[in-house]
């Protein structure tokens, strides 16, 4: 059984089938939406926040193929880091998988992918959010 790498950003609703969603807050006073943890609104400082879950499909805002990874990166090298704009506004950085570098296009639709990864040195796993190409056939 795996848990979210960070339950302030990703909630897992069904651990057996690994289903979940990105989470954040909407400010009831100024309507600004933020991804991830918040106690006060980043824009107007109100604490009148409502928890929301985000759409699982966003569009590619920018990307880079990382050839020299940060210290402690547990994945493959190189990897593609994608910045995805959610329909609700926030941008979310995560690895882009299941695509060839030459097929990447800014603006393309990407879908959330939940992938178990080995966490720390204890052999436990955590579920990490990534992005993968969104197939229009997935609409049905």
């Amino acid at each position, binding site marked *: 059984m795996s848990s979210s*790498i*960070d339950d302030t*950003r990703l909630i897992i609703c069904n651990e057996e089938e690994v289903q979940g969603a990105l989470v954040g807050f909407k400010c009831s006073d100024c309507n*600004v939406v*933020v*991804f*991830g943890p918040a106690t006060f609104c*980043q*824009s107007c400082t109100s604490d009148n926040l409502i928890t929301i879950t985000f759409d699982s499909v966003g569009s590619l*805002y*920018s*990307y*880079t*193929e*990382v*050839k*020299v*990874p*940060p*210290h*402690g*990166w*547990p*994945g493959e090298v190189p*990897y593609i*880091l994608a*910045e995805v*704009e959610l329909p609700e*506004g*926030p*941008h*979310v*950085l*995560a*690895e882009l998988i299941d695509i060839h570098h030459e097929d990447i296009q*800014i603006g393309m639709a990407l879908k959330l992918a939940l992938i178990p*990864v080995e*966490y720390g040195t204890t052999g436990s796993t*955590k579920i*990490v*959010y990534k992005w993968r190409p969104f197939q229009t056939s997935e609409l049905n």
Partner: protein
Amino acid sequence: MKNLKPGREVVVAGVGLHPFGRFRDKPLANLALDSVIAALKDAAVAWKDIQVAYFGHVYYEGMSFGETSLSKLGLTGIPIINVENACSSGSTAFWQAYWGISSGVFDIALAFGAEKVPGGPVSVTSEDSPDRYIGGDHMMAGYALRSRRYMEETGATPAALAQVTVKARQNASLNPYAHRKDTYTIEEVLNSRMIADPLTLFQCCPTSEGASAAVLCAKEALTSYHIDPKRSVNVVAAALTSGSYNGHGSDHSAFSPYRTEPAALQAYEMSGLGPEDVDLVQVHDAATIGELQQLEALHLIPYGEAWAATIEGRTSLNGDIPTNTDGGLLAMGHPFGATGVRMIHETVTQLRNEAGDRQVPNARVGVAECSGAGDVTTVHILTK
């Protein structure tokens, strides 16, 4: 945003720099002390005259490192403040020294910074952060995302980005204090090892070791300390801002006005000067894209045009907006705490007409802009 109202006029009376590079056998405190002693000598001021000291640094070197470094000069009992504000730590120390004097609390102050940054990619979060598993905590990958978006929206070419490094290395080749003095062609920059595309190794600043220092004084107190007013340089604006909400959270957009513009506009208003008055500028070029974005956010070049201006040579020593005249972060290297005051050192050196082979002719107004994590931005304007 609070309107900045300077009290007394403040000048830089002296500057000092320890060369940037690798000095593995020399303790950090000695780097810092060398720069401080150089600044005191340059100002012709005794250590016992300094009334307050601000020390910019980032990596933990032990508690109260500013105090333990300066104690070697003698225990004078003055307030010594350690400042951590990411890559803007040194410039924040300078900002505090400015306001300490301008407000009338102190007559004469020391601002200095020193750092030994290990090699390899720089991360912002701690090692157990989830971001280490998500892959986004990587300074240069962040700059790469900005580069891609900038190229997409402006039509900038990889060669234009590379030209920023070519120019930086040319300036550094004329500067004995620089970490990297070899010059390169655009092709050599583009063919260096890929870090995070489109950024190659030579488009990312080296993490380095170094130290820098400045002595600031109230203009009206110069004669009390027998400081030569002819060599002093006026500080006419000192602005510092942290992040404001950009609407997206994590954001690597082509243009980031929310990041630098607030501090720039404050500085212009405070000085009564505008971008058209600026003769030379030091900006935070941790990666090539950084220089382009900062020049635009400072309103020195219209948004989307800095890459073309760079290709045209406008940011070179003989251009109309000489930028990072000492080599900038790209060639000086980036010992975090030392970088901000290093920019002040170069600006003062240029305005005094003492920059030798890299001297910008008739330089009278210089801007120093330094940025750090947390969207901390400082903008200082100096005049002669």
